[in-house]
């Protein structure tokens, strides 16, 4: 092969390879060929605790290091919820949601997407607790169900018990424990959340349904048109 021809061919092949590389590097891919919109349900919430609480005995507490002593020891799990999504009153999806983690004791997370036709739709989203057991039977109910016993819920039932508690754990520790308990309860998702909204969705628009932690409600979020 003559040198000039070889160089010309080599250049041509190199240019072809480079162009090929550039084309492969940015090739159009139709990811959403249809104009359908998307309903995205995404939120996280703290599920209600279902737990049995008891007051540890003095000997139990004595066996624990000071920093591990608790006035009330609670064991249990978290509630299960059913998520239902309807569009124009017909069921689109339903799913059971539980708290995260192996013991389901973490926050629950929802991330589901549903294709909905663009245009006007009425969207219903419900998150309802399915467990029949009343959440937190012992901690909130004074001395209910015999075995369960909540020392901090017993304020006013007897000075002696309070004195005992103070002796064992100290007022600060009890107050901290109580405060934490109150915050946890306040953070929990209500037994029923429901959202019904009629929206007109643009082609390929995403309507987000999420949970507002501050107001304890579901709400929709849309992007700017």
């Amino acid at each position, binding site marked *: *092969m003559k040198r000039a021809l*070889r160089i010309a*061919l*080599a250049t041509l*092949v*190199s240019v072809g390879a*480079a*162009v090929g*590389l*550039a084309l*492969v*590097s*940015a*090739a*159009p*891919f*139709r*990811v*959403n*060929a249809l104009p359908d919109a*998307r309903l*995205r349900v*995404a*939120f*996280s919430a703290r599920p209600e605790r279902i737990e049995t609480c008891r007051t540890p005995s003095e000997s139990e507490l004595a066996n624990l290091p000071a920093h591990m002593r608790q006035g009330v020891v609670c064991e249990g799990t978290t509630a299960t919820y059913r998520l239902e999504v309807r569009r124009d009153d017909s069921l689109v999806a339903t799913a059971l949601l539980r708290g*995260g*983690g192996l013991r389901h004791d*973490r*926050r629950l*997370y929802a*991330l589901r997407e549903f294709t909905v036709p663009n245009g006007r739709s009425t969207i219903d989203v419900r998150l309802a607790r399915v467990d029949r057991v009343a959440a937190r039977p012992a901690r909130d109910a004074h001395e209910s169900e015999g075995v369960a016993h909540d020392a901090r819920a017993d304020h006013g039932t007897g000075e002696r018990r309070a004195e005992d508690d103070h002796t064992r754990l100290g007022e600060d520790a009890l107050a901290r424990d109580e405060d934490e308990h109150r915050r946890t309860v306040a953070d929990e998702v209500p037994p029923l959340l429901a959202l019904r909204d009629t929206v007109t969705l*643009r082609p*390929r*628009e*995403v309507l*987000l349904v*999420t949970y507002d932690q501050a107001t304890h409600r579901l709400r929709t*979020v*849309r*992007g*700017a048109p």
Partner: protein
Amino acid sequence: MAAKPRRLERLALRLLTAADAACNRLYGSRANPLYQSGTIVIALLGVLIVTGLWLIFFYRVGAPYSSVAGLAADPWLGRWIRGVHRYASDAAVLFALVHLWRMYAQGRSWGPRALAWTSGVIALGVLFVCGLTGYVMVWDSFGQLVAQEGARMLDTLPILSEPIGRAFTGEQELAGAFFFVNLFAHIAIPLGLGLVLWLHVSRVARPTLLPPRRVTWALVAGLVAVASLRPAALGAAATPFQLPESVRVDWLYAFWIPLVRSTSPAMAFIVLALGVLLLLLVPVLTKRRASAAPPPSVVDEDICTGCRQCSLDCPYEAITMIARPDGGRSAEVARVDPALCVSCGICSGSCAPMGVGPPGRTGRDQLAHIRPFIAGLDAGRTVVVCCDRGARGWRESLEEEGAVVHEVDCAGNLHTSVIELLVRGGAAGVLVLACPPRDCWNREGAHWLSERIYADREAELQARVDRRRVRVASANASETAEAVAALRGFMAATARLDHPQPDHAEIALVCDPVAVEEA
């Protein structure tokens, strides 16, 4: 001696040989990009680091898209440096895949080379992750697609209670911290890549890390040209509330996205994981049975003079010199580590007294094989010595030209005494047809042979041998025309010389040992 290739390896090798021949014709063997695939990846990583360092000054984690859009809008530097960065990353993946294919086809994936194979596969994976974080950095429609689909796939792993995908749903604005972590990963991962690459070449002596200068510059020029003519794509700004109809996708990095979308994230994850597992298992799957594996070199300690040449020439650092345990004729003696030896046989050619090499392939064994060959050789015939891989392609054509072909395992194994015996045995000339220098399966075989013939490297061709009757040329197995042309040229040159007179004097097989004081 290379182990016998398996069916799939044979097919891969046939394709590779044809592609090599085509590229040799176009670019010449010294600049053949397929021969340089590994070193080109390193050169491209260098380009990525240089352009990346420049780009980093303009990237803002608080405003990722607008900062990249600003770069893309700069017609002087920003646009083409970004383009070079992007296309270099694409080319790096492409050449890494070529390199992978090459090593597989040549059966260089098992035994002592398993570490290089495994680290190479890991390096490729790291390169992918690094590239993907780079696309996420831009946070355009493609970056968002990569992040969302990647998150969907990772969310199938039962190790995270909170789905990663929630970060991209629009519940909250994506925090600058996300882009900071992503940027950190994009910069930190290449550091890890450097470590993996060090491991990759740790078992080879004198690793060649960069391609020839003209290949490097041609590569850079090509990248600049493409980046200037077709600037790197920048999609629309990512938004969680509007789905794009179409996205411009880099298929070299995002080949897995259609799989996630068309099947399920879990299925895509399983398929990809199996693919990676299969690649990692190649050293096991291609490993030859002990009976089929070529045996490692052995040292005849009675012959070894302690000259260290085999240790210097070994391309895999498999030979070390140790003090002779019981004193003896030299201060040191060579010791082969069978775990590192790939049985390339380069040491056979490097040992002047012929005391080292794989069993049956030492210099002495070569002399034993060549003697009957010489006995049957008509004086005045040209002998072509070539490796069995090359001979498969052009043996018949060379014989039609009137040459006699003598096959060896690798031209780099050839002891110069064999050449001397052939010339003194009456051959008109000895043409050694080796693999192209950058394609020596045993890395440095052809190079060391040339040095022994022309540059007096230890185990050199003796001065008494007429150099006009010896030539080293190279040709790929499918370059029959080139092999024939080399033979014709050599035969024309030797035809002008006097008719050779056979001289059957024996070759001295004894060398002086290296004394203790000298060592």
